[in-house]
């Protein structure tokens, strides 16, 4: 999946591709980045206008499912006693 991203020098950015990944630019330059992040965890080329200008390493922070769980947990902690949130997640929501 191609993705256009604008990177700042020495800063990580966040992309949503098949998961949320953090891309750290090794070269301290501003570029308009077209990056291909599959598989996750790979070192990928940074191409600017068809020219190879550097590499990035794609490291997984968390996948989308884990992020959704964070969103759900934050809500459950607001509406039911904290002590039973884990039990609820374990007991409920199971299939048939």
């Amino acid at each position, binding site marked *: 999946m191609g993705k256009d991203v604008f990177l700042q020098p020495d800063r990580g950015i*966040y992309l*949503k591709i098949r998961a*949320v990944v953090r891309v750290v630019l090794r070269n301290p330059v501003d570029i308009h980045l077209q990056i291909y992040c599959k598989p996750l965890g790979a070192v990928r080329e940074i191409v600017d206008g068809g020219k190879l200008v550097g590499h990035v390493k794609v490291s997984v922070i968390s996948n*989308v*499912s884990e*992020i*959704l*769980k*964070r*969103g*759900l*947990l*934050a*809500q*459950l902690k*607001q*509406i*039911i*006693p904290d*002590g*039973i949130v884990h*039990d*609820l*997640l374990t*007991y*409920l*929501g*199971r*299939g*048939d």
Partner: protein
Amino acid sequence: MGLLRIRSWDIEDYERPKIRMGGREVSFRMLLGEIASSKEKLWIILPKSRRTNEQLFLLDLAIGIYKHQEVLPIILIGGVGEFEQELSQRMRVVEEAIHPLALDKIQHMVIYYPREGVDKGVIEDIANRIDRKIVVVVPKSDSGRLGKELGLLRTWLL
């Protein structure tokens, strides 16, 4: 902000209700699949069980939607007049929790459990005002009356 009075031992007593759609009994997983895949915006569930079971079903549904469909439910509990305020507040909590993702970048929907006194017009009005799919679990005290009023709306009976 809406709270549920659920205690740890209530969970052990929880029994998932039978789910009927158009008079036909369907599985819980089928219900989740229907809600996720359907293009219908509004779903109304009319429970026929005791209050604790009804509230646990609300959470069961929310957790099931998250686990099986990778859709984030936004759970709202409260008075009809507080709907938009509650939604806005809950969305802020969710946005903080899922950072760096934004809510509008992921699949999400609303599961709403209003306090007693909700009627057909209010449900339709809420559904018209929000731009995402919404499942309303009607309190047991209102479900009998509402069931008769909701002739044209698609509903599930538990």
